[in-house]
């Protein structure tokens, strides 16, 4: 029995000690596996500016929903005895030329401005993704024609046709949204197209094809899902620009009509008063600038966080 001659020691149970449960995994060096989203969140949190931006945006969202609901004043409630009042306990940010409470008006304006921003982003997302995906996936002549249309529209300053559309349709929430979307879906389409064009050449797409997946399944279940990162970043970048366009239009006097008000309208109403009541300009201006700044920070942060190569 040569092969069993390991040692002369006789093994008995007493020689062994039962291991503590906690030591069972002592050999494991891998840390807990995390999903893509958990990774992204971890990277996002490391970017202090992006985090501050996110917190600010959330506060702004909550305030603009809650303040008009709980405030004793309404956005169009006039008080002719209190015109251009300064900051006080009754009116935290003062009142405007009709004695309307500035805080409520700014937060109410925030609802409209943010709504325009997010609605424009969502619409551009759907139109742009479908257009870009089809163009990138079909390639060839289809792609050429579809992209020429985008190029042609791109070479005209977008503000010109946004103004045209709003003037033609009349200034209201809907026409501003349509006008703004007319420009932003193109960014999204270009982004998605270039993503789809690189991804469709990769092996997983070929594998899906070999397994018999239909074209639309490959496109929507594989290619678009895999380009989600850049798509989300583009969406976050669209929101501040849409808010800017709305403010620009309102500033030209073709924005949301009185007594309703967006941040742009508020700045426009007060711009004649810069030398007499500058604070009435400063509040809406600050609201727009800080919101756009935080959205840009969030976009930058997301761009880094959602890029799997930057692990």
């Amino acid at each position, binding site marked *: 029995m040569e092969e069993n001659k390991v040692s002369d020691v006789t093994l008995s149970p007493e020689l062994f000690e039962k291991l503590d449960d906690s030591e069972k995994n002592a050999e494991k060096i891998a840390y807990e596996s995390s999903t893509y989203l958990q990774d992204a969140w971890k990277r996002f949190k490391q970017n202090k500016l992006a985090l501050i931006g996110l917190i600010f945006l959330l506060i702004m969202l909550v305030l603009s929903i809650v303040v008009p609901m709980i405030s004793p004043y309404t956005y169009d409630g006039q008080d002719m005895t209190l015109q251009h009042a300064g900051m006080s306990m009754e009116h935290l940010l003062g009142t405007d030329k009709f004695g309307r409470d500035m805080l409520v008006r700014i937060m109410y304006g925030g609802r409209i401005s943010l709504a325009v921003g997010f609605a424009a982003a969502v619409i551009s997302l759907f139109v742009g993704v479908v257009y870009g995906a089809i163009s990138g996936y079909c390639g060839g002549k289809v792609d050429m024609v579809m992209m*020429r249309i985008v*190029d*042609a529209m791109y*070479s*005209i*300053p977008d*503000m*010109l*046709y946004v*103004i*045209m*559309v709003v*003037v*033609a349709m*009349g200034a209201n929430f809907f026409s501003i949204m349509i006008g703004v979307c007319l420009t932003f879906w193109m960014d999204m389409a270009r982004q998605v197209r270039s993503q789809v064009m690189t991804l469709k050449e990769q092996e997983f797409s070929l594998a899906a094809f070999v397994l018999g997946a239909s074209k639309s399944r490959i496109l929507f279940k594989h290619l678009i899902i895999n380009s989600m990162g850049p798509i989300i970043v583009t969406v976050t970048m669209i929101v*501040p620009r849409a808010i*800017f366009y709305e*403010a*620009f239009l309102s*500033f*030209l*006097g*073709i924005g949301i009509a009185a007594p309703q008000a967006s941040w742009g309208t508020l*700045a426009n109403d007060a*711009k004649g008063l*810069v*030398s007499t009541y*500058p604070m009435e*300009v*400063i509040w809406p*201006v600050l609201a*727009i*600038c800080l919101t*756009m*700044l935080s*959205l*840009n*920070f969030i976009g*930058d942060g997301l761009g880094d966080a959602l890029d799997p190569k930057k692990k």
Partner: protein
Amino acid sequence: MFKYVFKRVMVGVVTLFLLASATFFLMKFTPGSPISSERLKTEEARQAAMEKYHLDKSIPEQYVIYISNVLRGDLGESMTANTKGQKATDLIGKSFPVTARLGTVAFIIALVGGIGLGTAAALSKRKWVNNLCMFVATIGVSVPSFLLALLMIIVLGVWLHVLPFIGLKTPANYIMPATALALYPIATIARLTRSSMLEVMKQDYIILARSKGTPYKMVVIKHALKNAMLPVITYAGPMFAFMLTGSFVIESVFSIPGIGQVMVSSIQNRDYSMIMAVTIFLGALVITFNILADILSAAIDPRIKLK
């Protein structure tokens, strides 16, 4: 080269044609006609006005007349009360030089500021320089130009009284509107310059120039900057477009009688024929500029292969 230029010009012409058609049909669908605001007492006067503006013809006929007028350089007349009957081309010709002067100043500020900031951010060894430049760049894309203009007026014009803010009479008048107009391009150019500078400094020819004993400053100016400028030249077209549309609000904030002011008052007075005229004029200008920028960058950069 010739073929490339020809192709770009043809695409530009087609785009402009589409723009003119689109504005025509949009304005046709807009409620209200040019004569509805006029108080025309008699039926004959109404008829005469209808004939004058070709409103008695069908829409396709009006379209043909309109396009052939545009081709002959006739962009219609203003309908606003105080400029009524003046030719759109005259109004544009009078106001555009003002905008062009302001735009040129802003253009120079944007180039100098943007390239300076971007180069400093790329080359400086100190971290705070880089952070500062990138902070300015982020502010630049986040703060709308007209809001910056308002803030500047409040702080520099009203509170401190250091700069004038009405009209464009003295050189000091240019400072605030031109800076406001240039802020966004400064931010974009700074980002472009920084990233392309970082890229260029890694190239072999920079190392070669350095190893041959060329002073660092000379390498940066003669070799690196020259090559890093390519993306900035391509951006010149979009920047031009941005400044033109940006001038709409900047001019109205600073009461500058430029083309932006003409556009804004046309919009506020619903002067459709002026809106169309300015749109087509600005569209043509921007398309031309884009083509020039493309040709320029193709001519400078031997790596761009012309197809």
